[in-house]
């Protein structure tokens, strides 16, 4: 068996086996990205989760809905969701907003007029579309606006590509946002999630 063949068969085993186990039976290396995100949100006492849906986030959204620890609900716009978690934080309850790249593109005004000047630890989890196999030209264009907007406001952001770094980045970023009272964007790359492709 060549190295390439061995790697392929190893990956196939890894992909099949975890789905047959219950969550408690899974070793850390077998955990899913959405399972890690949910656990890390909970451990950091993030309770209010408004979202504007995204195909890639579906499993995370379903498992958040299924867990009564979280108040999970759809908002009509991402900007509205940012307003809701900002109010909730001022009221003493932490939240996070789930969205897609195109949704982030609607947020420049609320970031510049609410989250940053009022020093609100806004936590955004953005499923990244528009790259690594995008099939919709508009998505690929709007994706290119995301990091320049984040950088122009000097906002903390991380693009997460690896499962073994996910928990560390999410956990540390939430803690930093809360303690420094500054927003953060956690961008989930297709390298982590698989993304959305034309044949799905």
């Amino acid at each position: 068996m060549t190295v390439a063949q061995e790697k392929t068969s190893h990956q196939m085993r890894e992909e099949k086996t975890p789905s047959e186990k219950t969550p408690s039976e899974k070793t850390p290396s077998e955990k899913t990205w959405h399972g890690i995100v949910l656990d890390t949100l909970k451990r950091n006492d993030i309770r209010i989760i408004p979202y504007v849906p995204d195909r890639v986030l579906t499993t995370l959204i379903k498992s958040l809905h299924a867990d009564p620890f979280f108040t999970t609900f759809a908002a009509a716009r991402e900007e509205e969701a940012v307003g809701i978690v900002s109010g909730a934080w001022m009221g003493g309850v932490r939240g996070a907003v789930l969205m897609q790249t195109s949704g982030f593109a609607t947020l420049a005004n609320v970031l510049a007029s609410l989250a940053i000047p009022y020093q609100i630890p806004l936590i955004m989890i953005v499923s990244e579309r528009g790259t690594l196999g995008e099939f919709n030209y508009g998505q690929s264009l709007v994706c290119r606006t995301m990091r320049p907007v984040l950088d122009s406001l000097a906002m903390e952001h991380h693009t997460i590509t690896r499962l073994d770094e996910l928990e560390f980045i999410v956990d540390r970023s939430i803690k930093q946002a809360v303690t420094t009272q500054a927003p953060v964007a956690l961008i989930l790359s297709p390298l982590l999630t698989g993304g959305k492709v034309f044949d799905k």
Partner: protein
Amino acid sequence: MRNTKVMNRFDLTSRLVKKLKHEEAVIGGIGNTNFDLWAAGHRPQNFYMLGSMGLGFPIALGVALAQPERRVFALEGDGSLLMQLGSLTTIAALSPKNLTMVVMDNGIYQITGAQPTPAAQVADIVAIAAASGLAGSAWAADEEDFERLIDQALAATGPTLIGVRIDDKPGVGTTRRDPVQIRERFMLGLNVRQPL
């Protein structure tokens, strides 16, 4: 469509604030709405928006979800609400028991030069709210009716929305534009923070 009395924003805001005896939170929307809240007398439980047009109700919803035992009021202009009509459905779906929304409707963007809103001649904000699932929505016929609706809201078991027709007068005061202090004092007022 609407035959209710044309009232005044500052007068109505002052009437609302006088009725608040239990540290109720009040979110003042962008512009004149929070200027008049400021002019009605600062309270530790007031939050003033300096941008983010349309997010008065969503911010108030977040406060209401975080503190279900505290009554939360939100003051918005009609133009602001038009920016986030979808938020009415979010609020209806979550149905917080402790949230009251007041829409100050003069049909114009007063602060930018009194241009008419697209809704001014054609839409009924309270009917939109009711159709969004907010059954507890009503126009206030006059000042006395507004006070009655506020009293009802203070005892309500679901979200309420009060529409008021107002004149074209600008805000009476000007909020001090200090966002960090506004937010910090609001959190102190909500007992989320302790002073250093």
